[in-house]
């Protein structure tokens, strides 16, 4: 009896929370923005396709047993000369382009999200410490960031990738390539987070609630974690959303240049590079479809980021 009563209470609380979330400013603004809804739908489709690739892809493109060289270079289904079962055609080794895109998006999205998570974690930490401590600690961290910022992102990524290739034995390169890529992209991106967070932290730390916490005797770490961080996360959220798209593009660029993920685990960038070799011999589908998938993902994320920035900006409400 008591269990059922508490169940009802819990269910009621959950329902009221769900209703509150539905009525919240953010979701209200989302429901009123057709661009955001379409972008979100496209993104969800892409992410779902990537996540469930092993189950929904018509072919496992890296399982050599399932490939048939006789299927190579088949055009998309609506072009004459197409072969049944290959909706977007095949590449030079008989791999289904749709399947490679689904598997490639998996790697692209993983690298994008992981590198943004790493960059945000490092950047938020550095920004909080720099903004809260001030003085020499602040100067040291921010001058380091300035130096970092004077190199283009791709250059840093190329540098780290080159060093990793030189230091690590050749055999292990394939295994650590993705980790190196994530590290390289994160290393070139953390400064943005550090600067944003430092700025907001310096504003917030002058407010009286932070001083009240100091009077109570909360440690500096506790103040940063529990008081400052929740209040500086708004701009970081927007930045992170847009940066996922940037990270995916950097990853694609690096893979296109041949320093990214190994060909055994191709990302969208690798696919575009492979397809590029066939562009002038008329097999356009090998490069155009992965490119279109990349554009769709990046555009959807950017549009969502733009919407989020406007939705979180109280001045534009």
């Amino acid at each position, binding site marked *: 009896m008591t269990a059922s009563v508490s169940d009802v209470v819990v269910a009621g609380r959950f329902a009221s929370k769900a209703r509150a979330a539905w009525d919240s400013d953010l979701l209200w603004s989302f429901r009123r923005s057709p661009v955001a809804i379409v972008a979100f739908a496209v993104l969800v489709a892409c992410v779902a396709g990537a996540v469930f690739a092993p189950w929904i892809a018509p072919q496992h493109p890296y399982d050599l047993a399932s490939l048939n060289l006789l299927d190579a270079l088949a055009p998309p289904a609506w072009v004459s000369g197409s072969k049944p079962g290959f909706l977007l055609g095949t590449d030079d080794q008989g791999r289904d382009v749709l399947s490679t895109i689904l598997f490639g998006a998996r790697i692209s999205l993983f690298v994008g999200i992981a590198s943004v998570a790493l960059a945000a974690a490092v950047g938020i930490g550095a920004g909080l410490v720099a903004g809260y401590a001030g003085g020499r600690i602040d100067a040291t961290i921010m001058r380091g960031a300035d130096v970092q910022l004077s190199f283009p992102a791709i250059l840093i990524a190329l540098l780290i990738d080159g060093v990793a290739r030189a230091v690590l034995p050749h055999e292990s390169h394939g295994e650590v390539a993705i980790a190196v890529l994530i590290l390289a992209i994160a290393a070139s991106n953390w400064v943005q987070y550090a600067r944003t967070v430092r700025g907001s932290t310096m504003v917030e730390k002058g*407010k*009286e*609630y932070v*001083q*009240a*916490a*100091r*009077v*109570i*005797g*909360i440690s500096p770490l506790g103040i940063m974690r529990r*008081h400052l961080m*929740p*209040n500086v996360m708004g701009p970081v959220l927007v930045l992170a959303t847009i940066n996922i798209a940037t990270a995916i593009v950097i990853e694609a660029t690096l893979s296109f240049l041949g320093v990214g993920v190994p060909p055994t685990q191709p990302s969208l960038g690798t696919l575009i590079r492979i397809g590029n070799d066939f562009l002038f011999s008329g097999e356009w589908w090998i490069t155009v479809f992965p490119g279109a998938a990349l554009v769709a993902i990046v555009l959807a994320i950017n549009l969502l980021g733009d919407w989020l920035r406007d939705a979180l900006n109280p001045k534009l409400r």
Partner: protein
Amino acid sequence: MSALVRLTDVARTFDVSAPWLDRALGGKARALLRAVDGVSFEIPRGETLGLVGESGCGKSTVARLIVGLHAPSRGTIEYDGVALAGPGADSVPAGRRRQARRSMQMIFQDPYASLNPRWRVSDIVAEPILAQDARPPGAAIGERVRGLLAQVGLAAADGAKYPHQFSGGQRQRISIARALATEPAFIVCDEPTSALDVSVQAQVLNLMRDLQRRLGLTYLFISHNLAVVHHVADRVGVMYLGRIVEIAPTPSLFAAPAHPYTRMLLDAVPDLRMTGTARTAVTGEVPNPLDPPSGCSFHPRCPFADARCRSEIPMLRDASTGGKVACHAVDEGRLAPRTPAVR
């Protein structure tokens, strides 16, 4: 009665120089701002000391020095016999000092900035309890938070709300509940009512007086509003440019102000009984604290200043009114204490 809080010759200097590179290239000198300069006073247990003065006279810095938000550049701050800052503080074990700090709390000026906007009220009020060394069990904390909210006149259900759902006066009540959470003996109030409507001010002041009587609290009450200080304080200190120029029991200070600056401040207070008569406005401006005047810092604005005032800094001395005054003119008898009849 023993003093709960004692400040001895406390000073605080802030370095407001331009950044190092600008100084090196532009040939600018270091700029030091003496926010508080040789302030001494004590607050007996259970009493309220009011601290008044114009903006920028160092009242808030005194508050921050006492609660430990700033460290003093000179002087000693003692709480309940424990040296918190100054020469004697190093010999006091850190645990004793932390314990002493825990028994003092602060109420801030701006009730819109002093509560974390993303925290629920119950979490805000519970924070000092959770920061204690011995943390009570969860159920006891909830009970205590409800009790604290009731004590300041809020409903227990208000604990689930966020600060933005409250008015300024209610927010200040939340601040008071938070300050009371660790059962402190001493509360520093930094202009707690100056951001509130007049009608709400009275409610908050009465609540604070009520709590003082019930819990035996000691207050340092900082304000620029003389009427408010008159209402709450047992003794009043008047600050000018980082120094205390007069400190006296409230009735005698308001009835017979000795220092020319105190007279000027009191003359500027609107008074219904004096309707129709011209009021003397406070003339002149506070000098730049980066470049304070020589001698008595009030001499450029003082109608009684002479050569000695311009060269020699007056010390706080016992005055005939029962308080202490730092003024050569009063000292020498050039300026007779104002009789209560005048006001």
